[in-house]
């Protein structure tokens, strides 16, 4: 959440959005092959502290989704919109499905990451666009 007075970034998270915008999205992987998302210094699965950035595959697959009609105020102008959980290699990610007729969103749909913006706030939003 930025406002007029500050452009403070969330370390780890905003860098990840920057990377995703440059088609260089990544996951963190521990020596035991557990995948996770930043910001993170410790593997949540095994406690390992040597985490390495590994590139995310270019495409993911929707595992579950919903169409939200009653949003939080930050998405008032965006509703209705589809939110989905999609798997990209070692991690799952939650995002908004963009550029698609909401009726056609389904489990198994192949998507790629697309960082979009909220129509309500202009803030960046993690999105998925169908391939």
């Amino acid at each position, binding site marked *: 959440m930025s406002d007029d007075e500050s452009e403070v970034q969330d370390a780890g*998270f905003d860098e990840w959005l920057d990377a995703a915008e440059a088609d260089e999205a990544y996951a963190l992987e521990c020596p035991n092959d557990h995948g996770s998302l930043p910001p993170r210094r410790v593997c949540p699965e095994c406690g390992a502290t040597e985490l390495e950035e590994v590139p995310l595959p270019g495409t993911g697959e929707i595992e579950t989704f*919903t169409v*939200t009609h009653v*949003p939080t*105020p930050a998405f008032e102008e965006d509703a209705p919109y589809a939110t989905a959980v999609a798997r990209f290699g070692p*991690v799952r990610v*939650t*995002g908004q499905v963009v550029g698609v007729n909401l009726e056609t969103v389904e489990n198994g749909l192949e998507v790629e990451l697309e960082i979009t913006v909220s129509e309500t706030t202009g803030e960046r939003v*993690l999105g998925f666009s169908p391939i």
Partner: protein
Amino acid sequence: MHDVRVAGAGLTAFGHSPERTSRDLFSEATIAAFDDGGVSREDVDALLYGNFMGELSEHQGHHGPLMAEAAGVQAPATRYESACASSGTAVRDAVMRIRNGEDDVVLVGGAERMTNLGTAGATEALAIAADDLWEVRAGMTFPGAYALMAQAYFDEYGGEHEDLAHIAVKNHENALTNEKAQYQSAIEVADVLEAPPVSEPLGLYDSCPISDGAAAVVLVSDEYAAEHGLDAPVSISGTGQGGDRMALHDREFLARSPAARDAGEEAYADAGIDAGDVDVAEVHDCFTIAEVLAIEALDLESVGEGISAARDGRTTADGETPVNLSGGLKAKGHPVGATGASQIAELAALLSGDHPNSEFVPDATTGVAHNAGGTVASATVHVLEVSDQ
């Protein structure tokens, strides 16, 4: 180890009272609890208080001492925050304090003021129980998260919205005689199916309401109950807590609640019972799908079978194991921080024959209460039993 007894319990009406502060609500609930239990306020050793969104709804932090004042007790007080499982975790710690001999009398409860925020404000406040960076900023709401689980459940185990509708119908039916319930009105399956969508497949009638309310329970040691000649036939014989990853997408399962399963197994083992011994349950049905996940996690239904339990009458008032005879969060209401303690109050009343719906479970001796936080990244389970004093 000291047994823990429910000496008294009090609830405010749950519902729409935007002008009431949480200190006012909690004060009312504690007066009822002390009147009910015949326990002196002076004997209270500690107050454990659950609340989730006080900073957002009332611009108030540091609730512990404020609520001790509201209750009229001179005792150290601590706030517990575990999203919607806030007072469930408070109850668990109260039980452990009494068991280990630290305290004899613990006042435990919670309150939440929510309706003053309006629907959008409350939706925003509830959403912070999810991962802010990875879920909330992607537009996920609290109903949205449960909708993701519902869709995943349908995909994995089958079922449809109509099955879920039977859960809402059942819980409204159960609330008809509960004078504290937010809704005392019957609904039909068609009402649920035709209601405006919130987050598909969940609609308005799949969702618990936004509620104001408070709950208070006086827990005492066996010895204290005996010394003071208290009428306290119900004991908390088992307690358990489970946890899971914060964001839904980081979980192993999208359509199960391992945190609740862990909490249930721990509570059952603690009480020395198994799921087959459970006569009646109060579970955290913030959305219709949540009741399905809860009864499967508690092993009252096999995985994949919970979806049909209400429709086929296994969990209805006249069923084998009635679930949410209070009306559940769905019809009774869900003032978040008060919910876990209110389940203990309802279950104790059901087991001791003091509840309007006790007639449906006349021989019940064992009940289970399940309280979940967020999309079940937190869960507590308590076993209550009628036992000799």
